[in-house]
C-alpha cells in the first residue's frame, strides 16, 4: 500500500472515531447531568398549566425518555444522520437544522478569510521579525499582546475605537435594517461594511499567534546545521531564507489544527459582541434561553466544521511534506 494511502486511512479512522465520540457526548451529557432538562423546558410555559401537562408528555416522547437507553441512543443517531436536530424552543416552531443552516454562511464568510489571511500575514511578519533582531524587539511584544487578548475583548476594543470614537463602522448586525439578504451588489457592499470589525477582531488576535510561531521557527532554523553549511558554501541570503522558511512552514501547517479550535471558539464570542447572526450568536440565544436542542445542534455543527477543516489540513500536509509519504510506508500504521 502506498504511504499516502495508509496515512489517509489512518486519518479517516481518527476522524470517524472523533465524530462518533462527539455525537455520543452530545447524547450522554444532557442525560448524565443533574437537573431535569424537561423541567427547565416546561418552566417556560409555567403560565399555562394546561399546556404544561400536555407538553410534559410531548417532551418525554420527543426525547424518547420512556424508552430504554440503548434505543434512545440508536434513534438519536438515526435522527442525527438524517439531519434532524429537533425543534428550537426559543425560535419555536423552527427546526434547529433550519436555523443553523441559515447561520452557517455567515460563519464561513468570517472564519475562512480570517484564518487564511492571518496565517499568511502572520507568517510573513513572523519571518521578518525572526530575521531582524532589532525589529523583533518592537514587534514581539505586540504579537504577544495580540495573542494574549481574548477575542471578544479585542472586538470590544475595536468597536469602542472605530464605532464609538470614530464612527466609521456600524456597531452590530451583519447588514442594515431594511435590506433583504440577496446576491445584489447593494447587499454585498452593506454586508462587507458590517463584516470588517468582526473580521479584524479574529484576524488580529490570530495573527499574533502565527507571527510568534513563525518567528521562533525561523530563529531555530537559521541556526541549523544545514543553513550553516549552505552559508559556508556561499549561498545567497535569499536562498538561505527560502530553505529556512520552507522548513519553518511545516509546524505552522500542523498548528492550524490547534488554532482552528481556538478560532472557532473566538468566533462564537466575537459574534456576540457584534450581534453577528452566525452560529455563535445562535448558540448564545440557546444558552440564555436554555434552548437545549439548539445548544446540542450548534455543538454538532461546530465539531463537524472543525473535523472537515482538519481533514483538509491533513490532506494539505501530506502534499507539502514528502516525509509523510515515506514514513507511512516504512513502519506501517
Amino acid at each position, binding site marked *: 500500500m502506498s504511504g499516502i494511502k495508509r496515512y489517509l486511512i489512518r486519518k479517516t479512522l481518527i476522524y470517524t472515531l472523533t465524530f462518533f465520540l462527539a455525537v455520543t457526548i452530545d447524547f450522554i451529557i444532557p442525560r448524565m447531568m443533574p437537573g431535569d432538562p424537561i423541567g427547565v423546558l416546561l418552566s417556560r410555559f409555567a403560565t399555562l398549566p394546561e399546556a404544561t401537562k400536555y407538553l410534559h408528555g410531548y417532551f418525554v416522547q420527543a426525547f424518547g425518555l420512556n424508552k430504554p437507553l440503548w434505543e434512545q441512543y440508536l434513534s438519536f443517531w438515526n435522527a442525527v444522520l438524517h439531519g434532524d436536530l429537533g425543534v428550537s424552543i426559543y425560535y419555536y416552531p423552527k427546526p434547529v437544522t433550519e436555523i443553523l443552516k441559515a447561520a452557517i454562511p455567515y460563519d464561513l464568510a468570517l472564519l475562512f478569510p480570517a484564518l487564511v489571511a492571518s496565517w499568511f500575514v502572520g507568517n510573513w511578519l513572523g519571518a521578518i521579525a525572526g530575521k531582524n533582531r532589532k525589529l523583533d*524587539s518592537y514587534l514581539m511584544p505586540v504579537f504577544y499582546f495580540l495573542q494574549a487578548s481574548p477575542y*471578544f475583548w479585542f472586538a470590544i476594543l475595536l468597536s469602542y475605537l472605530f464605532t464609538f470614537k470614530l464612527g466609521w463602522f456600524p456597531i452590530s448586525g451583519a447588514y442594515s435594517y431594511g435590506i433583504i439578504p440577496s446576491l445584489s451588489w447593494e447587499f454585498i457592499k452593506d454586508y462587507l461594511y458590517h463584516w470588517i470589525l468582526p473580521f479584524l477582531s479574529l484576524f488580529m488576535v490570530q495573527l499574533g499567534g502565527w507571527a510568534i510561531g513563525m518567528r521562533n521557527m525561523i530563529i*531555530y532554523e537559521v541556526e541549523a546545521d544545514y543553513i550553516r553549511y549552505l552559508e559556508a558554501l556561499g549561498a545567497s541570503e535569499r536562498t538561505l531564507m527560502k530553505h529556512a522558511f520552507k522548513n519553518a512552514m511545516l509546524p505552522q501547517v500542523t498548528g492550524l489544527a490547534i488554532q482552528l479550535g481556538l478560532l*472557532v471558539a473566538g468566533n462564537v464570542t466575537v459574534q456576540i459582541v457584534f450581534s453577528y447572526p452566525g452560529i455563535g450568536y445562535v448558540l448564545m440565544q440557546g444558552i440564555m434561553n436554555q434552548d437545549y436542542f439548539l445548544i446540542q445542534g450548534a455543538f454538532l455543527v461546530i465539531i463537524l466544521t*472543525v473535523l472537515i477543516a482538519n481533514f483538509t489540513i491533513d490532506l494539505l500536509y501530506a502534499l507539502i511534506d514528502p516525509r509523510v509519504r515515506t514514513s507511512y510506508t516504512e513502519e506501517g500504521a
Partner: protein
Amino acid sequence: MSLKRTLRIALKNSKFKVGIAIVTIMAIFALLGPLTTPFDNMGYYPIKFGNTTFPKPTTPSLPPMSQDTVYGSSGVVNVTHYLGTDSFGRDIYAQLTYGMRSSFFIGIVAGGLATLLGLLIGFVAGYKGGWTDESLMILTNIMLVIPTMALLIIIAAYLPYRGTGIESLIIGLTAWPWAARAVRAQTLSLKNREFVNLARLSGLSDLRIIFGEIMPNMISYVFMVFILQFGGSILAAVGLDFIGLGPTRGMSLGIMLQQAVLWNAVTLGYWWWAIPPGLVIAILITGLYFINTGLDEVFNPRLRGGGE
C-alpha cells in the same frame, strides 16, 4: 542544568525579568487589591445592620476617580470609585480586583490539573510505547480535534449550579491534550539518551529511572507547559463566563465583560466598564508569554542570538 544555575541565567534574561515583573504585579493586585476597596466582590457597598449585611449600590455610570457618598448605618461615608461605576452603581475597581483573584485561582487549579494530566498521559505513552502509546495517542488526537470550548459549552450548559471550582475542573479535564503530546515527544527523546540506558543497565527500577533520571531533566519543560496552561485556562474561563456559562453566582472578569456588552457599555461610551477587565487579562498573559520566551532562551542558547 541545576536549578540555581538556571535561575541565575534566567535572571539575566530581560524577557524573563519583564515577564516576572508583570505577573508579580498582577498577582499582588489579585491578592491584596480587595483589601484596598470598601466594596464587595460584586462592587456593592456592604452595609451592616446587626448580623446581616446589605449590599448597596452607589451612583450609577460614574467615570473613573469620581467621588461619591453612601448613606450607611453609621452615617454618611465618602468613597472614591477609582475606575468608576457600571450602569447598576457597582464599583468597577472592586469587581476587577476580585475578578483577578478568581482568574488566578482558575489558572492555578485548571492549569495545574491540565499540566498534571498531560504530564501523566504523555509520559506513560512515551515511556511505555506499543499499544499503550497507540491508544493513548488516539485519545489525545481525538481530544485535540474537538474544540475545548465546544466541549465546555455542552458540559457547562447542563450544569444548573456552577462555581469557580467546577469551572476549573472541567477546563482542566479538557485542556491537557497538547501538553500530553508535547510531553510524549520529550519523553521519547530522553528515553534513549545514554544516561538513561546506563541507569537501565545498572538495574534501576522503572520508577527510579522515571523519577531519578528522566523527571529532573523535564522539570523546566513541565514548568513552561504549566505557564501556558495557566494562561490558556484563564482565557478559556473568560470566554466561558462571557457566553453566560461561568459561575452562576458572583462576579468574574468574563461576567463583567458580558454585562458590559449586554448593557451597551460601548455605545454609551463607558470605556471604564468594557475595557479594563480584558486589558488586565491581556497584560497578565503577555507577561506569562514573556516568562516562557525568556525561559526558552535560557534552555536553548541558540535562541539567544548575539544581542544579549
